[in-house]
């Protein structure tokens, strides 16, 4: 007994607010209250789960996470506990497996995720889940990212013992405008039910019927039409809930996912773009507990069709004469033409309409260009909409804070520019990434017709580009690197998921090239080969960005501004915990 350590591990752990847990024979320390499943996963002892989701309440109904568990033996009254040479008590293993999702770790607890009991429990549960599951993986959209498929590879028997008739349930049910339900594929984990109840607060989904006839269904008279309905598709561990948009479009193993951010509103929801070659197939939310948790609105998720639309501008377009039609040309001749024409513009009669949909790097380049040309009439188009008290921000521009920091503008100067166009004091307009005829910008077709010169940089054809003297094809958010600052003051990275369409160039590179050809000698501007370098230049200048590099922003971003704005859904989640 003399070999017991002077300080027992349990006391040492308790001092840190932790407990000692043995997982597969090795002792670890975890904070009190850690779920067994999280503890095991964190040390590489993987625990399969269907119903458990860290953001939803625990129901413990799939039974896939059963593990063998043991505790120190209960002592007879008056008996002193015994310790081994490392100071741990012996573990007496329980005769039945426990679920790892609902139980938390405790001092001197033992877990076995690789024992015979655990293995048999998993095999048994998996076999049950497969009994009534249709074997339609070849035509199922979830194939390739299906938990049931993965666990079957791990714990499946290889042959099936169930040879009876399967339970028949509903197939291909359109339960919402964007979501389809296959009740036979469902493993009844009820993640979708809990998501709609706990996160969205609309109790639309429920379970009907009893026993093997259990099925997910909408309450009578309702449909799954929430703007967050497609999150249930992400949550679904199997192919029961599928996205109508993505159904039968592409096998997921052909897709490449790129972590980036959403640009449809100021929240800057973290997303993954799923692409194959130069086509975007879908967008899914990426977990960031400070921005969007695990969710995203459908409206934002589905707003990607313009990336591969036929309206995309693929080459520079120029008008050689005011009345002549636009014709495609090379970058070289287009840029030369632009430079030639910009030299003719009087700076006082020129206005730049920039966009808060541009990245910080682009805005920095725009500022350089404006300074070089001496243009002071410069502002952005502000976009406001109703916030949904979840993730959709009132600010529908993704980088308003970046504009404020770099250009010092908020969109209030746009009226003056519009007035100038109408009273003839503004003769030249440079429109960057904005359709001036859109309701937010407020210009009319007649306004634009009256201009002497209109230069547009945009990724897609619109009313403004059609009327422009020169159109330079820019790129969408999926085709460029850059950073944006969201409503809460968090700087986040955009990553390039696909190569620019046709001959389109990244907007910041277009500005750089124009600056260069205009005779800019500022090394900071023209010597930047990548947007990452632009970022480093900005980090020198702007106080909030001090010390930022592309690398240390990371995939989750960094808060650099104190805006006082919060994201309602995140606040609610934090308040709950």
């Amino acid at each position, binding site marked *: 007994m003399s070999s017991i350590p002077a300080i027992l591990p349990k006391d040492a752990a308790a001092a840190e607010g932790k407990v000692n847990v043995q997982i597969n024979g090795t002792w670890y320390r975890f904070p009190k209250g850690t779920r067994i499943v999280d503890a095991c996963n964190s040390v590489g002892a993987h625990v399969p789960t269907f119903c458990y989701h860290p953001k939803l309440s*625990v*129901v*413990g*109904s*799939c*039974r*896939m996470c*059963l593990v063998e568990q043991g505790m120190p033996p209960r002592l007879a009254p008056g008996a002193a506990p015994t310790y081994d040479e490392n100071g741990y008590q012996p573990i007496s293993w329980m*005769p*039945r*497996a426990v*679920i790892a999702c*609902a*139980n938390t770790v405790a001092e001197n607890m033992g877990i076995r995720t690789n024992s015979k009991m655990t293995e048999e*429990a998993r095999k*048994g*549960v998996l*076999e*049950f*889940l497969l*009994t*009534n599951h249709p074997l339609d993986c070849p035509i199922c959209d979830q194939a390739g990212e299906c938990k049931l498929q993965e666990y079957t590879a791990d714990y499946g028997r290889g042959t099936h*013992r*169930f*040879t*009876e*008739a*399967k*339970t028949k349930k509903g197939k291909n049910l359109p339960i919402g405008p964007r979501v389809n339900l296959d009740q036979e594929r469902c*493993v*009844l984990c009820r993640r979708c039910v809990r998501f709609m109840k706990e996160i969205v607060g609309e109790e639309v989904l*429920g*379970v009907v*019927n*009893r*026993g*093997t*006839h*259990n099925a997910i269904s909408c309450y009578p008279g309702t449909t799954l039409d929430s703007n967050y309905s497609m999150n249930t598709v992400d949550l679904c561990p199997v192919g029961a809930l599928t996205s109508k948009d993505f159904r039968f479009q592409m096998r997921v193993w052909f897709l490449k996912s790129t972590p980036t951010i959403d640009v449809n509103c100021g929240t800057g929801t973290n997303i993954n773009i799923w692409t194959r070659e130069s086509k975007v197939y879908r967008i899914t939310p990426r977990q960031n507990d400070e921005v969007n948790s695990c969710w995203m609105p459908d409206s934002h998720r589905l707003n990607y069709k313009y990336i591969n639309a036929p309206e995309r501008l693929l080459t520079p377009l120029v008008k050689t004469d005011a009345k002549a039609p636009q014709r495609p040309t090379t970058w070289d001749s287009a840029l030369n033409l632009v430079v030639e024409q910009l030299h003719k513009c009087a700076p006082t009669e020129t206005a730049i309409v920039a966009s808060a949909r541009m990245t910080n790097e682009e805005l920095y380049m725009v500022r350089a260009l404006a300074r070089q040309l001496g243009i002071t009439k410069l502002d952005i188009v502000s976009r406001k909409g109703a916030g949904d008290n979840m993730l959709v921000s009132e600010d529908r521009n993704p980088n308003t804070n970046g504009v404020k920091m770099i250009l010092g503008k908020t969109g209030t100067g746009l009226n003056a520019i519009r007035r100038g166009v109408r009273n003839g004091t503004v003769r030249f307009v440079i429109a960057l990434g904005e359709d001036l005829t859109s309701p937010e910008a407020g210009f009319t077709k007649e306004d634009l017709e009256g201009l002497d010169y209109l230069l547009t940089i945009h990724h897609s054809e619109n009313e403004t580009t059609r009327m422009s003297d020169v159109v330079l094809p820019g790129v969408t958010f999926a085709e460029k690197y850059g950073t944006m600052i969201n409503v809460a003051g968090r700087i986040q990275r955009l990553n390039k998921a696909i190569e620019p369409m046709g001959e389109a160039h990244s907007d910041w590179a277009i500005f750089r090239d124009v600056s260069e050809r205009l005779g800019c000698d500022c090394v900071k501007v023209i010597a930047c080969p990548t947007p990452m370098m632009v970022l480093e230049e900005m980090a020198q200048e702007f106080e909030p960005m001090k010390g930022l590099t592309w690398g240390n922003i990371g995939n989750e971003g960094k808060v650099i501004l104190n805006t006082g704005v919060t994201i309602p859904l995140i606040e609610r989640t934090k308040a709950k915990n």
Partner: protein
Amino acid sequence: MSEITYIRGREPHPRETRRIFRNIDREGYNPSIKCFMEDGGYETLKKAIKMEPADVINEVKKSGLRGRGGAGFPTGVKWTFIPKGNTKPVYLVCNCDESEPGTFKDRFVVHQDPHQLLEGMIIACYAVQAHFGVIYMREEFPEAAKIMQNAIEEAKKKKFLGKNILKSGFDLEIIVHRGAGAYICGEETGLINSIEGLRPYPRIKPPFFPAAIGLYGCPTIVNNVESLCQVRQVLMRGGEAYAAEGAQRSPGTRIIGVSGDVRRPGYYEIISGSITYGELLYDICGGPKRGRKFKAIIPGGASAKVMRCDEVLKDRNPDGTVREMSVFDIPLDLDSIAKFGSMSGSGGVIVMDDSRSMPKVLNNLNRFFAWESCGQCSPCREGNPWMLKLSTRICEGKGSPEDVDLLKSVADNICGRTVCAFGEACSWPTQAFTTKFREEFLALTKPINALKAHSPETAEARKYLIRED
């Protein structure tokens, strides 16, 4: 109790001791409060409400009373599980969802003697300081719900319920909540969900132990009807006196419902442990029907493991020697039969004689459990219909010997892996029947059946086989 006369033909057996069932089938007795009070009703409440609540709990703890719903958990101990320093309201729920096949005891109380339950319940509510009680009445008892409701109104008029009960300062409301016809509502957390208006999916324990997080997240005590009636008996007779009667570890009387192949099936209230299963079936129930022999007993409601009547059981005497016995020698208390792998559960004894086909009995049980599985957790939801399909196929003569082993294996995979005790309840019969009556199952099977397709899908798939082996 010589002064009590019972309806002719329904007199209690001389070996019975009628306490809870004292007024059941009594001549001239009706569910009114008048009848009950003439018989000394609510006197115990008057006594109990003058005691401290903690003393009432102590009295029940001293009595050693164990819950009569099936699990046999000590009632007094259960009451002490309410967290110390609790500031939330406490609820008491009376579980009258008596739906275990073969169990019929609570129904007579709620139909014929509702005030007995009410009195027990008021005492229990007082003990745990619950100001709101719910009687969860199964859907199949529509009359009882009316009778109970009427009893509550009567009790309110007499100030046994409502504000300031008997001027003690204790307030209590009791309501009747009706189920919608589901076996799973008898599971206490499923029952709580049902009262909350949710699907009666049982909750996971931990963390949802009702005494800590129950109805609407508040501490909730769920007690069986008979348990609450026994609480009244405990307070009436005193905890120590109650504990002195009957088996040491499960004192008091027990109501046994005997059904199946005996001459006199019915309900019998006996002192726990005072008789054996043999005495119950042969002496009280009159033995097997003419020309028949007892074959099997399910001793505690449908989910208890079946016992073979011709099985030789081995028990250890106090001096260490082994003695051989049969199921008929097992005393009728809560624990004795557990030693032999079954349970006395809710006291529903189902008897089968040699005219019964065991596979068909099992198939019948499987049909019940497959229909009653709530469907929340995977093993039970998918395992039950599988067991049903297998046992049906075996009964139809379309099974192979391997199917019997498969049936047992499916049950083994359910047992112990579910959210609630339904997993055990549904798998124990299959485990026990296929083990103890294996030869009967095998007799119905043919090896050739293993090669046949058992479903249209399989038949369809087999068309494409080149070689059938």
